[in-house]
């Protein structure tokens, strides 16, 4: 250590440091030994709490850190990579986009409404802290089996929590995923992503610089809520064991809204040096991180913190996870500007300390020092683990494509897939989210593979998506994670966007199990490989481990949030068949497999087999053809083949058909596919899953130009049919394999989610 911890007397009334207390704080023998080495004395009670949260998995990334280094984080557009509150990329014209995705899994399982709500609040703070105006929220949700008794309680609670918070703060929730799988029965996933817009020359960071500068506490008061939330998030759930748990934090979106406006207004004045959200581990982690980045120290008096409860101790002030609070380092002499702006918005702003040059993180209570720790002990000296990782014994055996007997009834298969909760219409969910406020949502939820949000006073727009097929990742973490990147990139390309950068939210089981750790390492390496193939960096992210109940770990779920840029949104497209007479073109060469497919799960209750393979040359050719075809105004709708394969992709285009760029009443199509072979081959072609494919529509006049564009990029392209009629008809040399009225597709698809979970259906679309 560069500096020595000074002696600090135990605070009268605080508990004595015993082995039981150390155990309760989740520090093992080695870690506590390290604390003693660093401090040169036993820690005080407050210090013990601080080490406990700062060295928790959640804050220290002690298990993941050595692997995360393998990810590409640089690129010409990167203005801020991982390590700050959010990543920032340049989108030209002096503008930049800040974004990040974060998990709130454990709290949401305990209390779905507040858990999800505070997840949204936290990720918004990470983004506006950078100086960005939040313009969109996305979320990626994983629940247990749709018919699991808890799902009926958890799904509405989480959705209402996201709605209650996002709607009130006035940031549109524009896209996301809702998936169900039994591996999440005891541990749901709630991942929220926020996207903000800022000037590229006005990025704010959390670097506490300038000894003597005042430290201000702003926002809501500090209460006893959420103490040790970060430690909880680093622990597994034990079935049947009711351990004492910290209370889940309670969100107040109204205060958050005031905080957004006050912070953004303050940032227009020349008054602040650094700003940081108080997230997990509250005041402790925000102040330690700011001092760590600045190479400075901080001294703060907890007696000055506005308290929400009587008699709070320094330990409680330091570890509280009360929401809607920020820490600001102001330029000396500018405190009054902070106080004036926050006063206008009816918020408190109080000087609680100052930046020092002693390299110590010091907390006092009035005149008495209660904690004083070298800053680098809490950041750089945190333990780092290279945990053992082992390929599961059955991994190789699980790779063979399952031998599934064809049902011989493609229409029935299609309807069952459309009605299955992962593929079914998600309108019941997104109609509870205000997805239009701020007038930016040019392409709405469900209308395209990615949401399209316009940039004010510009021709540009952002295409936003989240993606992860965790069944693919479970089947093969390396290939499955590459698949998540490929699909996210295709999603934005289908609207006409260039994929720019990624945020990741890595949800895994208990890393102390070598097979889970192997999944983690494989997933990171797969993600790195895919990002390098597409030359996309990851600029922010979050790791959530210990997602496990009893012996059951969740399916590994490396959620990908991707931001794409549309230079001229005039031509941005949705996925629905726009109008009668348009030609349908299949871009790419299908290589369908039943491995890890929705067909396998829904029709045959089989989940084995390797996920679809990737051909990166073909993938790049497809992305370019999609982007250039859309921006040239040739492509009028586009949709990639994903869950449920080519058959489901066509059905989804028919269901949303009738209006360009929005959701219409439906429109049929006649499609001729080369489905040679027997019934099994036919079902595999229609419902097996594949990368590298998308259906697009184009006017008959523009068809030659589109085919020429595809040929130029080396992307396979076949004219396979035309839009029109009331039915989706797919034929091959042997006649019709599919002939289903769009109205039948609609009843299966629209009612699927609520029927599976047992909720009241949403009324018919207006």
């Amino acid at each position, binding site marked *: 250590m560069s500096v020595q911890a000074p002696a600090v007397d135990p605070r009268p009334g605080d508990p004595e440091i015993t082995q039981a207390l150390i155990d309760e704080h989740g520090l093992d023998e080695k870690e506590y030994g390290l604390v003693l080495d660093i401090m040169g004395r036993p820690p005080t009670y407050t210090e013990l709490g601080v080490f406990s949260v700062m060295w928790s998995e959640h804050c220290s990334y002690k298990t993941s850190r050595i692997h995360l280094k393998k990810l590409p984080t640089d690129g010409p557009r990167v203005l801020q990579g991982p390590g700050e509150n959010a990543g920032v990329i340049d989108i030209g014209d002096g503008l930049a986009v800040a974004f990040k995705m974060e998990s709130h899994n454990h709290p949401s399982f305990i209390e779905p409404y507040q858990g999800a709500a505070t997840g949204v609040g936290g990720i918004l703070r990470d983004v506006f802290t950078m100086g960005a105006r939040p313009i969109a929220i996305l979320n990626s949700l994983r629940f247990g089996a749709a018919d699991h008794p808890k799902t009926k309680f958890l799904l509405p609670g989480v959705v209402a929590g996201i709605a209650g918070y996002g709607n009130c703060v006035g940031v549109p929730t524009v896209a996301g995923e809702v998936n169900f799988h039994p591996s999440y029965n005891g541990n749901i996933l709630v991942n929220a992503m926020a996207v903000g817009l800022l000037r590229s020359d006005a990025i704010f960071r959390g670097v506490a610089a300038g000894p003597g500068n005042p430290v201000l506490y702003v926002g809501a008061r500090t209460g006893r809520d959420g103490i040790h939330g970060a430690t909880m998030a680093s622990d597994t759930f034990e079935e049947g064991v009711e351990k004492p748990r910290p209370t889940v934090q309670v969100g107040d979106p109204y205060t958050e809204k005031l905080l957004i406006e006050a912070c953004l207004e303050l940032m227009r004045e020349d008054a602040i040096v650094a700003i940081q959200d108080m997230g997990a581990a509250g005041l402790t982690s925000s102040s330690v991180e700011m001092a760590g980045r600045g190479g400075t120290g901080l001294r703060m008096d907890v007696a000055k913190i506005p308290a929400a409860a009587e008699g709070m101790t320094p330990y409680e002030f330091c570890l509280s996870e009360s929401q809607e609070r920020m820490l600001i380092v102001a330029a000396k002499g500018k405190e009054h500007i902070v106080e004036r702006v926050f006063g206008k918005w009816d918020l408190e702003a109080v000087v609680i300390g100052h930046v020092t040059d002693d390299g110590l993180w010091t907390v006092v209570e009035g005149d008495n020092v209660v904690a004083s720790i070298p800053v680098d002990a809490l950041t750089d000296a945190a333990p780092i683990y290279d945990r053992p990782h082992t390929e599961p014994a059955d991994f190789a055996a699980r790779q063979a494509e399952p031998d599934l007997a064809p049902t011989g009834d493609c229409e029935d298969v299609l309807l069952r897939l459309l009605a299955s909760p992962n593929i079914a219409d998600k309108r019941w969910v997104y109609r*509870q989210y205000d997805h239009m406020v701020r*007038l930016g949502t040019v392409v709405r939820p469900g209308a395209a593979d990615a949401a399209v949000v316009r940039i004010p006073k510009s021709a540009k727009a952002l295409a936003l998506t989240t993606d992860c097929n965790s069944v693919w990742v479970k089947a093969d973490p390396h290939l499955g994670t590459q698949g998540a990147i490929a699909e996210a990139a295709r999603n934005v390309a289908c609207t006409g966007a260039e994929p720019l950068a990624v945020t990741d939210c890595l949800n895994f089981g208990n890393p102390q199990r070598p097979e889970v750790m192997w999944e983690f390492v494989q997933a990171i390496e797969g993600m790195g490989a895919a990002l390098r193939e597409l030359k996309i960096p990851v600029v922010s992210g979050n790791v959530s481990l210990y997602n496990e109940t009893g012996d059951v770990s969740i399916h590994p779920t490396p959620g990908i949030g991707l931001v794409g840029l549309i230079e001229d949104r005039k031509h941005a497209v949705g996925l629905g068949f726009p109008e009668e007479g348009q030609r349908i073109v299949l871009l790419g060469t299908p290589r369908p497999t039943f491995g890890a497919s929705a067909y396998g799960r829904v029709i045959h209750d089989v989940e084995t087999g390797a996920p679809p393979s990737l051909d990166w040359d073909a993938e790049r050719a497809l992305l370019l053809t999609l982007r250039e075809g859309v921006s040239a105004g040739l492509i009028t709708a586009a949709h990639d083949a994903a869950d449920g394969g080519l058959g489901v992709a066509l059905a989804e285009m028919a269901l949303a058909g009738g209006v360009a760029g929005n959701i219409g009443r439906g429109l049929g199509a006649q499609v001729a596919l080369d489905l040679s072979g027997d019934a099994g081959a036919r079902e595999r072609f229609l419902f097996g899953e594949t990368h590298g494919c998308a259906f697009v529509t184009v006017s008959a006049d523009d068809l030659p130009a589109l085919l020429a564009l595809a040929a130029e990029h080396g992307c396979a392209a076949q004219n396979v049919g035309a839009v029109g009629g009331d039915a989706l008809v797919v034929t091959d040399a042997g006649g019709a394999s599919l002939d289903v009225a769009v109205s039948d597709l609609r009843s299966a698809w629209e009612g699927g989610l609520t029927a599976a979970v047992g909720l009241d259906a949403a009324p018919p679309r*207006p």
Partner: protein
Amino acid sequence: MRFGVVTFPGSNCDHDAYHVVKRVAQQDVQFLWHKDTDLSGIDAIVLPGGFSYGDSLRCGAIARFSPIMESIRAFADAGGPVIGICNGFQVLTEAGLLPGALLRNQGLTFICEDQHLAVANGHLPWTSLCPEGLVAPIAHHDGCYFADEETLARLEGEGRVAFRYADRDGNVTPEANPNGSLNNIAGITNERGNVLGMMPHPERNAETELGDASGAWVFRSVVRAFLNGEVGR
């Protein structure tokens, strides 16, 4: 013509209203802070959507005590045009500038969706240029319009129902009613017709990039009425 868009703490559609007045209706516009009391130079007032005071107590119940509300009452009494959209409608009912109340949606959830409206009275300052049917998205948790029988009879009898929830063909049916509002009421006016409250958001469908742009006619109507001297103080 100069519009003032009021910002209460928690308003979140204030920038949207400002944008549409300026860019679509092409009128002068400024924000008004809820503590302002001086409305000189203002020709029309927008109370925007959002969650003023976080919907504490009841939607709009605290915002009605904001200092600006007394000035707005005087402005309305003098004949100045006022529109309350969504939370703004709730504020107007709480302030007593419009009768009735907005209760929790019948389905008990927040709903955000495109909504077809039938113009029930096309001769009001805020509706005179509107086509018979509009699309205006709804985004609310508490939009179920309620009034006692006598009030309802007066509203209907005096032609003060401006908009009703309808289906895409313009039929006012129970199925087209998203929130349980009495008589499918989506918007009403005061006796003089200069104060309009509506739950749907016309500003969210005022540009072709976001829909069929039919919501813009609400703003254009009041501009025409003002320029013709039909409203204004």
